[in-house]
């Protein structure tokens, strides 16, 4: 699994932190006033992007997407509104429903909570990128087989969460499936079938307890 290089995280968050500090907070810091001021000056000297549109290059499902986006555009909006990738859904736009879940370097993330500019240089996989040569992925196939969907709007998000889980843990328990999908909501109430689908995709044998009595 690829992880983001620590330096990059540090550099990014330090700059963001200093920018958010503002003058009052910065001068209030007594211990390292000098160095903070120097850092602040350096950060402000760097080229800020926006508020107008800037070129953004995303790598989605192995293909490059070259877009002109305001820096405030989220990854979800970039895909849904600036490209034809509408598979990731918007259910809340605030990190509570999981319908927008995509993989970023194999980790599931809420694409409504990532700015598109932050997603540059990362490998993004959406629901559209799972089937290969027209063949459904094992998770997609299991969702079909177990009827792990009703209206289908939350389905891409659940499939991405389960896909990420099985990459990390090929043989999860039902509780591990529940944990992996804890950030996804489904209003149709398809959950029991989603758990069955995840287990089936992991190779476990799944049986239904439903009984039909012919009257």
């Amino acid at each position: 699994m690829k992880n983001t290089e620590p330096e990059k995280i540090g550099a990014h968050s330090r700059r963001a932190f200093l920018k958010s500090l503002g003058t009052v907070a910065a001068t209030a810091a007594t211990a390292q006033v000098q160095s903070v001021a120097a850092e602040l000056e350096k950060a402000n000297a760097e080229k800020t992007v926006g508020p107008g549109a800037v070129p953004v290059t995303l790598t989605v499902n192995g293909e490059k997407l070259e877009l002109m986006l305001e820096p405030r555009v989220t990854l979800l909006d970039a895909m849904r509104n600036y490209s034809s990738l509408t598979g990731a859904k918007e259910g809340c736009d605030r990190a509570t429903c999981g319908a927008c879940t995509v993989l970023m370097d194999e980790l599931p993330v809420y694409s409504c909570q990532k700015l598109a500019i932050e997603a540059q240089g990362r490998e993004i996989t959406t629901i559209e990128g799972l089937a290969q040569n027209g063949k459904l992925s094992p998770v997609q196939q299991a969702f079909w087989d177990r009827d792990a969907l009703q209206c289908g709007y939350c389905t891409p998000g659940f499939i991405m969460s389960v896909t990420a889980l099985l990459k990390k843990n090929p043989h999860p328990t039902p509780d591990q499936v529940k944990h992996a999908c804890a950030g996804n909501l489904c209003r149709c109430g398809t959950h029991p079938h989603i758990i069955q689908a995840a287990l089936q995709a992991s190779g476990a044998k799944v049986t239904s307890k439903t009984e039909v009595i012919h009257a």
Partner: protein
Amino acid sequence: MPSWPEKTKYISKSTLRIDAPEKVTGRAHYASDIQAAGWLYGMILRSKWPAATISAINLEKTLQVPGIKAAITAKDLPQTVRFYGEEIAAVCGATKQACLDALRAIEVTAHALPFAVREDDAKKDDAPQVWDGKPNVSVSARGSREQGAVDQAFPECAAVIEGFYTTPVQLHNPMETHGNTVSWTDDGLTAWASTQAISASRDGFAGPLKLDHSQVRVITNFMGGGFGSKLNGSVEGVLAARLSREAKAPVRLMLTRFDEALAVGNRPSSFQKIKIGALADGTLHAFELDNYGTPGISGGDVELPQPYIYKVPNSRVKQAHVAVNAGASRAFRAPPHPPASYAMESAMDDLAAKLGMDPLELRLKNDSNEVRQREYKIGAEKIGWKEKYQKPGSSPGVVKTGIGCAGAAWGGGGASKRTQGDAQINPDGSIEVRLGVQDIGTGTKTVIAVVAAEMLGLKPEQITVKVGDTNFPPGPGSGGSTTCASISPTVFDICANALQQLQTQSGIADARGNNWFAACKKLGVTPLVVHGQWQQGDPSRPLSSSPAYGVQFAEVAVDTETGLVTVKKIVAVHDCGLIIDTLTLESQINGGIIMGMGYALYEERVMDDLSGVVLNPNFETYKLSGIGDVPEIEITLLNMPERGVIGIGEPATIATAGAIANAVFNAIGARVYSLPITPARVLAALGKVPPFTAVKP
């Protein structure tokens, strides 16, 4: 007279959902996914006042925001708004970001008015009137009635209980919010709508916009859930259309999750003061209900069908609407049964405790319905009632367990008898079946394929199903659990007509199965188009009917230190006549139960009485059942082909809250009188914290 075949290859078996491949690959395009050429983003400005007169709206600065193409007011001014979230203005522009900026630039001049958002505040004599000159409280003649001699009957009872059972306003919260992509040009209006009713949606555009029905086309290939809230024409749709007209471009206007909690429907609350009494042998003898609830600003249904599934010879029911400054209610999965079932079934268990009776026995004694009698016995066996039932509150330890049950009935509308459809059969044997219905996630397309395959001797995957377009023959809205019972006989009729025509045109006596391609080939170059419509069929073995029944049992664990309720298991026993597709049916029952569990334990719209706003218009604070909350669910289905096809979407959600509430009562020996059964309410019922609710009977 036509009737369903006795031996079936696909009907009553499990067929995989035919549109799942599109849904699992992201190829399914919902209203919110439509990217019509040159489309613009649309957004609505909503009232931040729960009541106000709006005298001026200045859109000048808004129209100067870069990227904005049009801005309109929702109504002519002055506008009186009556709830927080009412539509005031709308904008469209090249990007969502431009629209966000544009909404902020709208200048509204408003005079705030007094308001009341809570039922008890609105009931007061000096409460501000939601509608000028009309009292907030109106007693419902339809919901009030009396039979027998109630006042004489109560003293004759061996046991009488009284309880004040309340249920909250519940929000639909479909995963896809309400909205449309609309293109309105001189050639007419096309709307890709997230709707449960394409026909009603069409009329909802045509009426306000003064267009002929023939000028409006509504398309719904996929939609992300509605649960009753998307049966209507919509304000947001009309605003999107007007924006499209003005901007000369298609407009996609989907509500935000925030909007969704304010203006597009909810289940009314109920405040049910129940008094019920039984004779010494448990026979129900006297019943009294005094109920009020709020449908917000609307006149929606608050009348509950009490005493629900029980017959009580002496009963008096009085019900009233209470108008408040909040969004109007709409139909919500099985309206208005869940609050009725919850309160009545709770009262039944409270009465059983007073009588010292097993609550299941009390039900079997008083429920005259033979199907439910059977279902109770099956369910009791499956949950292990005999072994697990113990006197309320006798479970030992800190975490107490309990079981409970409840029953349901759903008559609904049965079927829409005017449902029509057609099929085009091509000389190469391919067939396309077209109905003007919509698949809201229930498996409508799959049902059509299953029935057609069965009747024609083909495989479901050989049937191309087209729905969700007002250009197709008219079908019903997907409400009242009527869709399956409407379309199945219609497809039956289409296929019967097709076989007859094929016989005439091909000379082949039976065009089904192996003969299909030979018969179709004889059509020459002209495809065959056949029409069909809903048929009752043989009255003794109808193609469709109603009602449906059902019972559910719940097993719960209640932590008496934290008040947390965990549902361990639900046993559901349901009938729905002739089962069409067992797999998608099972999904619907799971869904009904899980939604019912949310109603029992988690869901409640909270209004702030001081500011008049909805306090939880999001998923952080409006809690839905999550995957970790979902219990083991065991479903038993009674297949009754002789009754024909009956819908299941609604019956499956009715009994859940009552069964869970009774299981909680059984576990802790104290009644939680209000839904949702939150930890605070459990602790209050146990006397460990002061009461949570301020509402007094």
